[in-house]
């Protein structure tokens, strides 16, 4: 039975994929049928909105269940079968809450801060290659675009902390700013390694360059170190434990988002979870092959079997694993103190990142490979 199946697989062959993004389709029909282009753009917007909502609710439910099972308890069980509708109930609750702006707070900034945070997240969602046919726009400066936007995300935190007219929020905002700005450097250095190996900045190009194997092992140890650096730096970028000192619940009751309630708190909250997905997606795209299936050298039948699983499932599966790892970190580790966090970045991760980059450059230029690059 298995032998017959393997023979069929050998005949079917490996799929090849051509990448077509929604932006490509829109621009292709722009001159001739402009209304189709507009339709594509509307589809893109709706898709992103739906994705934000679906991902948000799904991830929040997942976090609560995963946290619960780590803690020997059940998590939400009452609302719907095993609590599936809990996120829906929470969303409705947040939407119906009173919107409170503290007295003597800076109203404009206070209203603006959560939007900034969420908008940055959504902008990144638009460029990630989910599958060969599901990518909204393939920006030619892909990786640069990602690092630029993560630099923008600090604004929302800072504004939220400053505008709340609350000393605790201010402390949280300041810590967040220092933390995010510092860890961007390490994250960028880690991303640069993959950019050098794959020779292109575009995200779909990077995914396609992993057709022979994922960068995490093809990049000879430099890749593993880069991935480790990126995961640490990215966890710090999105303010998750062990780096959640800006919203350190035990000290600051909520840090920069203490004074937010209702819909705008929902935005901060949602932004945190979608950020987690975005960071996982970037890790997957750059280090774990994106939508590329798992291939082993020339073992055709295995590769064909792996190729049968649709690429979007590969992508979301890998992202789910990375998201799970981040949640695992949160429910296991204590929190680092802010100066220990800064020391980690500036004295340990940054030198390591630079050395990593130099070694990667040496490996590429001197063609010192074990696997084909």
């Amino acid at each position, binding site marked *: 039975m298995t032998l017959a199946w393997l023979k069929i697989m050998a005949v079917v062959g490996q799929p090849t994929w051509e990448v077509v993004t929604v932006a490509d389709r829109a621009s292709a029909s722009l001159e001739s049928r402009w209304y189709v282009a507009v339709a594509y753009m509307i589809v893109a917007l709706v898709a992103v909105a739906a994705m934000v909502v679906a991902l948000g609710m799904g991830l929040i439910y997942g976090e609560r269940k995963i946290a619960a099972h780590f803690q020997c308890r059940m998590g939400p069980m009452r609302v719907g079968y095993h609590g599936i509708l809990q996120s829906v109930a929470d969303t409705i609750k947040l939407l119906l809450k009173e919107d409170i702006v503290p007295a003597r707070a800076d109203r404009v900034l206070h209203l603006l801060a959560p939007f900034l945070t969420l908008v940055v997240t959504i902008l990144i969602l638009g460029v990630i290659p989910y599958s060969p046919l599901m990518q909204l726009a393939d920006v030619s400066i892909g990786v640069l675009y990602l690092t630029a936007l993560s630099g923008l995300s600090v604004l929302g935190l800072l504004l939220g902390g400053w505008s709340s007219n609350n000393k605790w929020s201010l402390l949280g905002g300041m810590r967040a700013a220092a933390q995010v700005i510092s860890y961007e450097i390490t994250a960028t250095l880690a991303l640069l390694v993959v950019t050098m190996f794959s020779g292109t900045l575009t995200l779909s190009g990077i995914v396609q360059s992993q057709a022979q194997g994922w960068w995490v092992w093809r990049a000879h140890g430099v890749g593993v170190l880069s991935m480790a650096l990126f995961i640490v730096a990215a966890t710090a970028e999105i303010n998750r434990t062990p780096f959640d000192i800006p919203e350190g619940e035990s*000290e600051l009751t909520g840090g920069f988002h203490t004074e937010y309630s209702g819909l705008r708190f929902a935005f901060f909250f949602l932004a945190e979870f979608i950020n987690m997905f975005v960071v996982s997606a970037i890790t997957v795209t750059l280090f774990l092959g994106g939508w590329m299936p798992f291939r082993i050298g020339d073992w055709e039948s295995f590769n064909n079997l792996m190729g049968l699983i649709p690429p979007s499932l590969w992508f979301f599966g890998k992202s789910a694993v990375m998201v799970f790892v981040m949640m695992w970190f949160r429910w296991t*580790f204590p*929190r680092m103190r802010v100066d220990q966090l800064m020391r980690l970045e500036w004295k340990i991760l940054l030198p390591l990142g630079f050395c990593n980059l130099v070694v990667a450059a040496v490996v590429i230029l001197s063609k010192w490979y074990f696997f084909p690059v």
Partner: protein
Amino acid sequence: MSVTVRTLDELLTPPTAADSPLSTQEYFVNMGPQHPIAHGSLRIILLLDGETIRKVIPVPGYVHRGIEKMCEHMSYRKIITLTDRMDYLSALMNNWAVARTVEKAAGIETNSRIETIRTLMAELQRIQSHALWWGVLGMDLGAFTAFLYSFRDREIIGEIFEETIGARLTMNYIQPGGLMFDILPDFAQKVKKLLAYMRPMINEYDTLLSGNAILQERLRNVGILPAKDAVALGCTGPVVRASGVPYDLRKVEPYGVYDKAEFDVVVGTKGDCWDRYYVRMEEMRQSIRIIEQLIDNIPEGQYMVTKYNARLKLPKGRFYGQLETARGVLGVFIYSDGNGDTPYRMHFRSPNFNNLWAVTQIAPGWRIADYIAIQSSLDLVIPDIDR
């Protein structure tokens, strides 16, 4: 002699420019009675310069119930019910402190069955209290899971208490003259099962938190309290033992049947948060050791040597008895005027009240995040501060 009385508002006037080289401005921050770290309703005002603490001003009193005033109108048996509510995590030990003092003053001699059961209950409660402290420390420092794990294990001890005593928190069990109820026949077997479960669990606690690099960095060399300062600041219990002073009432002035059990007094070296943390972890293991030695040989006898309804009249005089609770030395001072069965004046030397003052001397110079670690490692229970 004259006296100037001040008010809190005077202390909270904002200071002018600080004398740090960066010329920043100091500011007051309120870790108010409602705060995730407060462990109860304790208000702490911090004078901060950036993130560094310059001054700590505790403002207790949010849980002040006037227990000492109430005691002047209640008979000694009824006072036991009030003691549960002071340091509720060492309720049985609080009961025992009052019971012991009253028995010594009134000249009541208990038998060895009573003393053995009291010792066993106290040690079980010590494990329970330290387990909760461990979970709360983990939660305060960000490792939320620790809290759930320790509560799961506390439940098992709580079930044993519930079967024997009838209550999980407010025990009212150890009375002057004996115990409220006798233990059930399967008490020893249940306790042995608990010990077999708990011993590897403490090792699991070590694996989860103690070995974690982040936790060690947060606790090592933070909030150092030297031995001389610790004693001068009136600290007792694990706090003073972590600073290097081997003052454990169970060894120094043995009561119950502690002199029959072999155990070590856990003493730290440096007096930093890590020492305070590890002293309590080891104390859990020592408590298991004590229980193991006593559980198989509970002597026969009565569980109450006086009649429950008999009036306890103390002679006129000043009496003081103390006990080592999970947090320190609980002292009970009774001044009895010889008439009636209520004390004329009853005062509780509460360990948490005295340990709280230490935080005002340790914390200045450290950061807010260190303050959390320091206060957690002191293991304060607020109702005991306010009484």
